[in-house]
């Protein structure tokens, strides 16, 4: 089957098997291996990407379901000059990652969370990231990272407004 998907701002058209999951399409066909696979039951969130701005677990979406959609993966978060997105920077500054395997999914889930709720409380961050598992950090520094990213992005929005 034919899919036409815009990924990180670039349009791709490919022939795929109907059963191909979006995550396998991104990794195997497009070579975007930043999106990781951590389970086979849509429980861990490692494969989270943005589909038309909303976070989805790319292992629960068929590639053909993404036909016509805009996808953002972790590779699309930094600026073209390589400077990190404020969420990525906040994770770096706050030691919000250790092995880094859950991190791309965690960053994408955070992007979606902060879009829906730019000023989350700690409780809201914890509930909002419930679908993303991390085995290294105990979430302590992930929560800190998300709150720090919210503060930075809020400041940037204010700056743009003024």
């Amino acid at each position: 089957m034919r899919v036409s998907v815009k990924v990180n701002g670039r349009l791709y058209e490919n022939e795929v098997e109907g059963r191909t999951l979006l995550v396998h399409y991104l990794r195997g066909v497009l070579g975007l291996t930043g999106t990781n696979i951590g389970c086979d039951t849509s429980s861990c969130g490692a494969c989270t990407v943005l589909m038309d701005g909303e976070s989805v677990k790319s292992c629960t979406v068929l590639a053909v379901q993404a036909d016509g959609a805009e996808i953002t993966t972790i590779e699309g978060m930094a600026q073209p000059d390589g400077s990190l997105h404020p969420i990525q920077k906040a994770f770096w500054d706050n030691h919000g990652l250790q092995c880094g395997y859950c991190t791309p999914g965690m960053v994408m889930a955070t992007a979606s969370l902060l879009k829906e709720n730019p000023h989350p409380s700690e409780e809201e961050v914890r509930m909002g990231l419930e679908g993303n598992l991390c085995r290294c950090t105990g979430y302590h520094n992930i929560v800190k990272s998300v709150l720090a990213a919210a503060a930075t992005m809020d400041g940037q929005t204010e700056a743009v407004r003024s």
Partner: protein
Amino acid sequence: MTVTEQSTNTVLGQRLVRKEDPALLSGEAQFVHDIQLPGALYMAIVRSPYAHARIRSIDLSRALASPGVVAAFTGSDLQGEWAQPMPCAWPVTKDMRNPAHYPLAVDQVCYVGDAVAVVLATSNALAQDAREAVEVDYEELEAVVDLEDAASDRVVIHPELSTNISYVWELSPDKEAVDRAFSSAAHIVSERYVQQRLIASAMEPRGVLAVPHPFGGEYTLYSATQIPHILRVMLGVTLGIPESKLRVVAPAVGGGFGSKLNVYAEELLAMALARRIRRPIRWHEERSEGALSTVQGRGMIQNIELAADADGKVTAVRVSLLADMGAYLQLVTPGVPLLGGFLYHGVYDVPAYSFKCTGVFTTKTPTDAYRGAGRPEATYAIERAMDALARKVGVDPVEIRRRNYIPSDKFPYSSAAGLVFDSGNYSNALDKALSLVGYDELRAEQARRRSSSSTKHLGIGISSYVEMCGLAPSRVLASLDYSAGGWESATVRVLPTGKVQVVTGTSPHGQGHETSWSMIVAEKLGVSFDDVEVLHSDTAVSPNGMDTYGSRSLSVGGTAVWLASERVLDKARAIAAHQLEVAEEDLEFKDGSFAVRGTPDRSMPLAAVAFEAFTAHNLPDGMEPTLEASVTWDPPNFTFPFGTHIAVVEVDEETGKVQLLRYIAVDDCGNQINPLIVEGQLEGGIAQGAAQALWEEAVYDDRGNLLTTTFADYLVPSAAELPSMEMASTVTPSPTNPLGVKGVGEAGTIGSTPAVMNAVVDALSHIGVSNLDMPASPQRVWQAIAAARSGSGSEGRM
């Protein structure tokens, strides 16, 4: 970099952000699964659906005819590939029974998930399709799931051994002293605890990619492993390939926690098939497959007895364990319980000690190291038993601990179990934790709730822990019959341009060694943190190493880096003195430069020295060119980090639900190289330990089926279940290494499980609940409360 200004002697102790992170944050880091290699075949493994069965026949014909399939093999097809069975490196007793274990079972399967056949195809999906087409005819035998049932030999799993007992290991330096203490005790506590099996659940599943190189007979294995160096030795031995022809690479590795500290069937199969087919072979574990095929942790029944005098001063500890080996012995399976065997008296000054462990086979996935490996189990038992003793004596859990701590003036402390604890100040950490948590106010709040009709009970749980880590002095390992040493190596190389390369034998998978080792070198050589590059986890680059586990990397590997830097500096000083035509004693090294004392304008930066060492135009007579040094460090002792953790929980009597409200941790790992990393290690460890107490359990049914193969059933906590942690530290340097550091990778897990369980029991003690097994799930807690309320005892075991 967050911290930009650095000069000599100020780098250590800073909260530098990690240099590993940009690659991980941008998706550029390469895990095994991310490595693209044309022409690779995908391996799918056919696994037994039975816990115990004889293999009557295997029919591969339909699989071989499936689309994309290149080859398929049974265990007997591949039996000629193995020079030896799979390795167990820790024969803990001379008469330990160890059944021959091959990557594919031949006649008999012994756990659900035991591999029986492999299929190779041109894509992962096609390999999985073909796997379904393999037909295996089994004759089902009886499963052996329960540990005590296994020990009874009612059903013998491996007939050639004629028993399910693998070994009995005892540590009883003075049995009579223990007996005397018990016969004259005013109080005796006798407890039985169950350590449920756990699934490590590193977020990256395992994966391998075996690559044969043309003509030379050489191979590269990429594996999601903690132990590329040990693996290389074991691959050579098991496959009969000269070790010199093997290269093992652990690329970015997504967590391990002990589960990637092994030599796995899939690694051996991929290598053997790469040799046979002459094509690259790759395999990527599925999560639910990994629940079966990756070693599990814990799994034991613990009997612990304390003898105490009338004041609650413990006079003896006697421990007997039944430890679940699972179906076979993996790399260090039998040794794991023994790593805790020296520590069942915990932080307490106990004069008489006796420990015995019986290792038994069951028809379940093999057990092996899981974060803490033996020490969490020991700490759990003694810390719960100390609470039981406090209840018996009628004193507060804090008071019973104070009465029994090893006094701070007794270090180095020679324990009755035969260890020498390097340094400690246990009451210091306790005091700090009590003050942080507001202990007295919490007890008052607890009393208020108890006197009201509240059904939400407050529990406060204390755990004071010590652990032995930094594996390990090689001679001590010899005395424990371990088959390898415990040293670590490092090379520090100042390149002609003044940039520095560090080669380490440790193999990080989340611990941040690139950052910490760079800090150590920057401190010693006065170079910029950013000018240090750390090379690791590739046996072609770093040929000598003992890898990463047992909270060893900093205290052993980091020390090697420190000492190698020192040696580099010694050579540089000799070159600088020669160049500047002064005696070495007349030079002072500061801010990365050698200056003549009293004539500071006569100086030579380290980079200039490195260039002189490179050109070798004018070196002292007899000196070898280049500026680099290698050190292999064998530690004189373990390190003994310690601390006190306090958990505050709320238990809802009506639902049995436990909510972790607060978590306070005061840890002492000696000097801290990078507190940001130290705290991160502890926080993650605490979450894992708390998860054992409250949520996680590998559940088997009576037929040996694992029921918890997904994250929907095996409850790895999310952010929503955990509170933010309140972290603090004390600093008692270790005298066993020049950095004064102790390991910290496992301490959080070791301290937290008993703190949380003691809090749950404390919340319900006024109802009469005194015993409860893990995980303290709503169902189990509710049943314990119901049993206590109805007066039918408080066992709560189910």
